[in-house]
């Protein structure tokens, strides 16, 4: 033992090797344990409580272990806060049903677009690998809002997608729309865009009893998109009275004409009404 403990002998490397072996073993064993489901939705629940839209951060170290629990968002980018309020169902005279709601998006971050480089036919026009490494404001257009049927029937999820209401000014009330043209737009960092969104199922179909609106701006690699579920009605399908009226037990307020929708919008968000104001609601002021 005297020899082993002699100050002439040092055993730093043996100790370092032992420590390195333990570290290596822990890392290899640790790699057999996964941390989280990376991609999921942030579900918006209540008006006034905005939820976060998140995208991949800039990652040159290959990390996948951030965000190990629900309260830990990790190193993703907080891209925007979305709030959804004041939903209302519009039932038109010819039976078409629309869902209106107020969407407020506050841009809180920028996204790394990571777009395209690596596809030869596109790179030919832009052979610059550096092009997409700087963050940009995400792009919003009609594809950023998806309408999904969200109901079970006979134990199966029903398929079907809805759409944004066509941008025909003659068919819509004169209120500000979040998607107001076919052109994409960006919300600058720190800015807010708030306006109405109108969706329908298309092809004359009624709204389902429940649907989910999915928010997913373009050119972004989202890790947490935003879902907003809406309960529209209780009945499994519309029924018709002997007089041809549609009878559904709606769970949201119901309006009928565009004038009513405009008045509703004016009451909820006066700033969302166009310069001409709302047209008078038929019958109002005519005793």
């Amino acid at each position, binding site marked *: 033992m005297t020899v082993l403990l002699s100050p002439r002998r040092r055993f*730093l490397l*043996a100790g370092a090797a032992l420590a390195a072996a333990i570290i290596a073993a822990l890392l290899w064993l640790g790699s057999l344990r996964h941390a989280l489901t990376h991609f999921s939705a942030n579900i918006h629940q209540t008006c006034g409580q905005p939820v976060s839209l998140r995208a991949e*951060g800039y990652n040159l170290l290959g990390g996948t272990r951030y965000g190990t629990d629900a309260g830990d968002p990790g190193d993703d980018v907080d891209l925007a806060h979305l709030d959804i309020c004041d939903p209302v169902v519009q039932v038109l005279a010819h039976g078409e049903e629309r869902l209106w709601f107020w969407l407020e998006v506050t841009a809180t971050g920028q996204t790394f677009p990571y777009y395209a*480089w690596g596809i030869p036919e596109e790179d030919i026009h832009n052979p610059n690998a550096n092009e997409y490494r700087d963050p940009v404001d995400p792009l919003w257009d009609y594809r950023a809002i998806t309408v999904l049927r969200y109901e079970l029937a006979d134990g199966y999820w029903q398929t079907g997608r809805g759409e944004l209401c066509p941008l025909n000014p003659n068919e819509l009330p004169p209120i500000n729309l979040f998607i107001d043209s076919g052109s994409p737009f960006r919300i600058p960092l720190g800015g807010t865009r708030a306006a109405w969104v109108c969706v329908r199922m298309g092809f004359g179909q009624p709204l389902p009893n429940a649907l989910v609106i999915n928010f997913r701006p373009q050119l972004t690699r989202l890790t947490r998109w935003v879902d907003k579920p809406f309960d529209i009605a209780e009945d499994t399908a519309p029924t018709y009275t002997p007089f041809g009226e549609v009878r559904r037990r709606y769970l949201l307020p119901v309006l009928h004409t565009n004038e009513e929708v405009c008045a509703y919008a004016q009451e909820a968000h006066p700033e969302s009404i166009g310069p001409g104001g709302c047209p008078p609601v038929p019958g109002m002021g005519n005793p």
Partner: protein
Amino acid sequence: MTAAASPRRDDRSYPWDAVILAMLLVAVIVVLGSYAVDAAWTIRWTDVGRPVAGQFRGTCYWMGDARLLVRIAGNGYSDYDVNLAYRHLTILPDRSWWPVYINLTALALRLTGGDYCSGWWVNLSAMILLPPVIQGITSTRRPLLMVGVALLPFGIWLYAGMAEGTFLLFSGLLLWLLLHRPSERWGVNVLAGIGGLLLGVLVGLTKPNALALIPGFALLGLSRTLEHARNRAGLATRPLLLRLTARLLDDTNPGWTALLGTLGILIGLGLWFYQTSGYYPGYVLMAQRTLWYKEFDGGNIPAFLNYLALGWQNFFSGKGLPDPTPWNMMEFAALTMTGILIARDLPPRWPSDRPAHPTAVYTVASLLTVFGLMFVSGQAHSLERYFLGNIFFVITFLRYVYGDADEPPLADLPRVVRARGPDSLRAALRLAVFACALALIPLETIIMVVYGL
């Protein structure tokens, strides 16, 4: 006396002239070789009616993983593909490419303002730095031996914007460090040991090929430890066992450096496996296992042999060269060449009047590990890249073809063959391996370009 002392002093001095000449020649060969490969790609694209595609250099963009590596370096690691489509866990993720080379390329992207050939510049820099490392490992004074690193079999991969050159550089530095002469000063050994650990981590984070280096470095450490133990000087007094144990455990044992280098590789690989396994246990390993097709039934010897013979069988039976056959040929060439290097000291030995230079056991272990990985996984593609990027293969090849200090250099081999002496057979074999290596570079270029790989 002066005349006699001078050569000895020259022998001990560092061969700056040879090393600098070798670095220059390697730079020239890699640049010219790259442009030759690029020209082949351009001709190919023009031939198939897409001349516009020729605006990208093949070695920077079309070849292998080059553009993927630059894309990751520019954009960072992502779970999406370039179309922003949803990914599935079993689709090859970005994380299948290890991070060191990618971060060096990201740095080059910054320096070049976004040049899509940034990866190629990183590789070229690594290749230029390789000759002094080769010199350090082999102690050679022959420039050609150092230049030979740019003319290796399957060497086309060393001209591309890919990680092979960088991996060779780092693993070469580690091997050089591990072969250092042990010092009686503990501080020097401790520094070497910690350096080995850090270099090992770097190697483990550069390419998954580091897996095949682990047995080689581990055996190197064991052999150096045994050599250290056999030196019984200072162990005459009793108790011998206690003193021997202390001697093996203390910092003068050069085996620790190799062991720490090996552990460093394990830590580097472990870091990457841990870092990338957030979604799924052993994510990268799972993705690699599920992504690639299997060329043969893994672990099945007849299937393995049948696979190896398939290419030649088709060729000789007149069936032509179906799509995968060139790869069979490349893999067959890799196996043959590696087999020669492993078995070169088997009897009968040449030359008979000189001791043979056996292939070190640790080298054989590393090369056999590549075979083992291939055999167990049932996946043989890129086998030639695994050998090309293996520092043990590279050093063995260079010493075999260009000769150690006491062997005739490459330029003398034709004369040795013509002399028909006892050395002739071995000299002819060395020349044949060299010619085969040179021929494989354009052959692989043709395969690469024709099959768009």
